């Protein structure tokens, strides 16, 4: 089977600083892959390279969907999203002054097409499309469990709900691959548990592959099919949770220093 | 389809009927006063050109009212600000018209005057400006209701150019302007007259940015052009900067300018460097008893010397009120006729108006700064 995401020797330099060094990574269809590593290891930079916020200095990024393999290097972020990669952000980046529903509706933007004239004249096609956007978005919120907040402003949501809204918004773009940047950061035990179920649920029902960055090792070990460990931009280990837990390099570089992280 | 067209037609008709019906009833009842509108820049960065005209109007009206008014009626002043902006000037003009003014003294800036004149014209109101010098105002024939007590830019430019060519016998001249309505208008005419004369070459023609902190680059350019003289169209703040910088660079290029520079502030600011500068301005009437009286009245009432266009405004008010007196009413046609036929004594001399609305008798002469004062060049 062809991997959904295939990253070959990706390198990213900032001036003299090498943030990512020759990184290879694969995500297979319907797989949950975790990317872990100490702070500053280059994980978020890796996400930014994939989603087009940064243009990588070297290496290739391929996305394979329905048998078509496309190179993503140098595409603008919105094009990457359109191709089928959605993401969440480590420091929550919701549209604070929009309602929860509208946040999700924004996610539908790239899957809809009505234009200026449609907006002004509200022809039948635009009306139908708009109705569909609203109902689709609502369905997503129901699924994520945020439907009771529909008309709240995003800024007024509790912290855990904001994280979930980020996921809902990303799902609305109909991705094949979902990148989650520390989805459990700042959540309590119960919230993490719920998130855990949510992620697995998304994978199971939607057939979406998931690549996540996470510091909560319990979560990572519970849900990941495979784990990549990076340090100083380099991959130091790869394997299933059990292998990783036993890997001496990982224990030395990461778990050993800070087992609770 | 047909149905809807009919519907639109009906709407339009009903609409027009409403407009005609109501607008008919909006005439203004005569009351016991003659209403004189005074419009111009009374706020903003050009206020200093407008406020003296308000003072002039106040003083004239005060005196005339004390002596029994005009046609036995008291004169009422309606003062409105236009900030020298065309868009505000239309509001000012409609406000004055709505208040039922009989005549208007103003506006100060040519642009604002042009915008307001259409409204006065449609309302049959005579408008006399003390300071709007744009030639088109009288020469285009578009504004039969317009008069002014100041000469137009082209008349002034002609005077300055003739002076440079015939008296000073110059043959290389730089023409500089401040890009403004007044300055550029003046400079364009100066350039045209110079080129038509064939006697002198325009070696430099440039606009400078008003309000800039210095003009050294333009001054260098003048120096390099080898001009014998600069003809400058604009106002005194820029003129004094240019003159000062020229003199500091030890250039003795002759400086000839317009009415906007013939201001005592220019001499004060430029100090010793002002010496020898030529500027055209209204004919010297400082010996005219009416002028002396007007200036003294200002000093007494406002405790300061009158500012720009004070005499012109004073004369304009006198001319307007005199014409109403002679015409026996505020009727548009009668007053127009009186303005064109009746001579009147004013601080700028004995004047009446020609067919186009320019004052006859309010000539210009060239002045030169001598020992800190403008003296008429004979």
């Amino acid at each position, binding site marked *: 089977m062809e991997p959904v995401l295939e990253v070959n020797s990706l390198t990213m330099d900032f001036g003299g600083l090498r943030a990512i060094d020759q990184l290879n990574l694969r995500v297979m269809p319907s797989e949950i892959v975790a990317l872990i590593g100490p702070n500053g290891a280059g994980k978020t930079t890796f996400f930014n390279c994939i*989603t087009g*916020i940064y243009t990588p200095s070297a290496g290739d990024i391929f996305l394979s969907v329905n048998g078509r393999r496309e190179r993503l290097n140098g595409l*603008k*972020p*919105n094009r990457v999203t*359109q191709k089928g990669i*959605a993401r969440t952000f480590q420091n929550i*980046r*919701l*549209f*604070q*002054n*929009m*309602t929860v*529903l*509208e946040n999700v509706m*924004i996610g539908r*933007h790239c899957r809809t097409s009505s*234009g*200026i004239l449609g*907006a002004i004249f509200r022809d039948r096609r*635009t009306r139908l499309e*708009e109705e569909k956007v609203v109902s689709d978005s609502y369905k997503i919120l129901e699924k994520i469990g945020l439907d009771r907040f529909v*008309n709240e*402003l995003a800024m*007024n949501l509790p912290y855990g709900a904001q994280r979930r809204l980020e996921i809902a*918004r990303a799902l609305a*773009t109909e991705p094949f691959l979902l990148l989650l940047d520390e989805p459990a950061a700042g959540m309590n035990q119960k919230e993490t548990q719920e998130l855990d179920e949510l992620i697995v649920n998304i994978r199971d029902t939607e057939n979406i592959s998931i690549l996540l960055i996470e510091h909560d090792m319990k979560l990572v070990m519970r849900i990941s099919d495979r784990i990549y460990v990076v340090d100083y931009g380099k991959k130091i280990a790869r394997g299933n949770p059990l292998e990783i837990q036993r890997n001496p390099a990982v224990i030395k570089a990461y778990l050993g220093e800070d087992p609770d992280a | 389809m047909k149905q809807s067209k009919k519907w639109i037609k009906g709407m339009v008709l009903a609409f*027009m009927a*409403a*407009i*005609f019906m109501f*607008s008919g009833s*909006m005439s203004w009842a005569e009351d016991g006063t003659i209403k004189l509108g005074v419009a111009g820049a*009374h*706020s*903003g960065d050009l206020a200093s050109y407008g406020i003296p005209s308000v003072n002039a109007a106040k003083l004239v009206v005060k005196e005339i009212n004390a002596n029994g008014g005009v046609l036995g009626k008291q004169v009422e002043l309606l*003062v409105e*600000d236009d900030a020298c902006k*065309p*868009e505000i000037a*239309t*509001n000012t003009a*409609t*406000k004055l*018209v*709505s*208040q039922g003014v009989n005549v208007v003294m103003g506006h100060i800036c*040519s*642009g604002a005057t042009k*915008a307001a004149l*259409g409204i006065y014209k449609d309302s049959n109101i005579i408008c006399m400006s003390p300071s709007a010098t744009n030639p*088109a105002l009288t020469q285009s024939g578009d504004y039969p209701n317009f008069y002014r007590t100041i000469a137009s830019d082209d008349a002034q430019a002609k005077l300055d150019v003739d002076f440079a060519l015939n008296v000073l016998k110059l043959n290389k001249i730089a023409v500089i302007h401040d*890009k403004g*309505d007044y300055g*550029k*208008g003046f400079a364009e005419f100066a350039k045209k007259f110079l080129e038509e004369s064939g006697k002198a070459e325009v070696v430099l023609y440039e606009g400078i940015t008003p309000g800039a902190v210095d003009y050294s680059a333009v001054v260098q350019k003048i120096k390099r052009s080898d001009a014998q003289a600069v003809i400058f169209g604009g106002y005194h703040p820029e003129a004094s900067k240019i003159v000062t910088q020229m003199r500091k660079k030890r250039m003795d290029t002759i400086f000839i300018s317009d009415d906007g520079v013939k201001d*005592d*502030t220019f001499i*004060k600011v430029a100090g010793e460097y002002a010496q020898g500068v030529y500027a055209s301005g209204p004919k010297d009437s400082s010996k005219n008893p009416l002028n002396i009286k007007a200036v003294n009245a200002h000093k007494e009432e406002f405790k300061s010397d009158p500012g720009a266009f004070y005499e012109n405004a004073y004369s304009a008010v006198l001319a307007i009120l005199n014409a109403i007196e002679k015409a026996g009413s505020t009727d548009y046609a009668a007053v127009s006729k009186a303005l064109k036929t009746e001579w009147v004594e004013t601080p700028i001399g004995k004047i009446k108006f020609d067919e186009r609305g320019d004052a006859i008798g309010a000539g210009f002469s060239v002045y030169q700064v001598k020992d800190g004062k403008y003296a008429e060049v004979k």
Partner: protein
Amino acid sequence: MNVRGELKKSFQISAWFMFLTFPILVIRVNTVENVIEWRWYNMAIVGVSTFLGSALWRYLLSVKEKSQRINAASPGNMTSFQKAFSDKRFFYPALFILIGFVISFPFLFSMYQANIMITALIYVMLGLGLNIVVGLAGLLDLGYVAFYAVGAYSYGLLNFHFGLGFWTTLPIAAILAALAGILLGYPVLRLRGDYLAIVTLGFGEIIRLVLENWGEFSHGPSGIANIPRPSLLGIDMTLTQNTIFTYFVMIGLVLFTIFVVNRLQNSRIGRAWIALREDEIACQAMGIDRTRTKLTAFALGATWAGMGGVVFAAKTTFINPASFTIWESVIILCIVVLGGMGSILGVISGALVLTLLPEYLRAFSEYRMLIFGIMLVSMMVFRPEGIIRNVRRTYTFSKE
């Protein structure tokens, strides 16, 4: 205790202001005539007025702080005004009265009132247009006046050279302004915040300066005169009739603007603008094309300025570059922010306040700009979110 403390504070502030205003308010120098005038009475006025003023100021500030604590922004928290507005029993009669008033306005009041109302309505249009750029898309544009100038000069020049009428020019000017919006928007796509502001300010000035200097094209600083007023089927109208007619033209145009802006705002494109304003990175990550979204905002914002410019030229019958200075952009920006960014009703009230206020302040003649300045500062201090806060649309769903 508290009263004494407050009194003491007021005393200090009043003493501070007496010191502050001493040279400029008390001494007047005239270096032309070398006269110095001492005006001690001004100091007394300042002392008393700041004493009272500072007490009031602090009182209002404390009120504001209290209300802020209670009032968290959320769509459920509408002002009483907005609540009344959304109440149908209240809304329809109010709307009816408003329509009646709008229609009868020029007949009830003088031509002057109709005339300044036209000006106000032009600014409503400009405000709504700029609201798309600043309020919705969050692009700080300090050169909006450029498009206004494009509109006004389109009419002035097309009429001068080709004799095109008001109604023909209106759509042409709108298109030209939109094109100008795209043209100016393209190079500044990468800039954000204040850099964008200063570059757009530069563009505004460039347009004005070109109009001023390129006399062969634009008639230079002396402007274009005798621009015809709006016409109706070639009927000859007196000035008063024409003013009334222009008033209704403007009412129509404003209604059209409100209609279109309202629809845009609640559409796919409108949501993209708001998302762009809220977070550019996240917006792109959601698959929104930043370039296109920004350019549509610039273009659609500029369109209204273009049409406003045509009406402006027709109304004043005379245009010159001096009408399109940076102050004009600033005033339009003030309308948007003072009214309430992103809120149509807010922008309308902002425009009415900011254009009618200086006119009605004419009674204070030379003090009016001073009062205007104080107004702006105090409005922002006590109500930084503007007169009317933007309220997000809510949706209702029935649980299945």
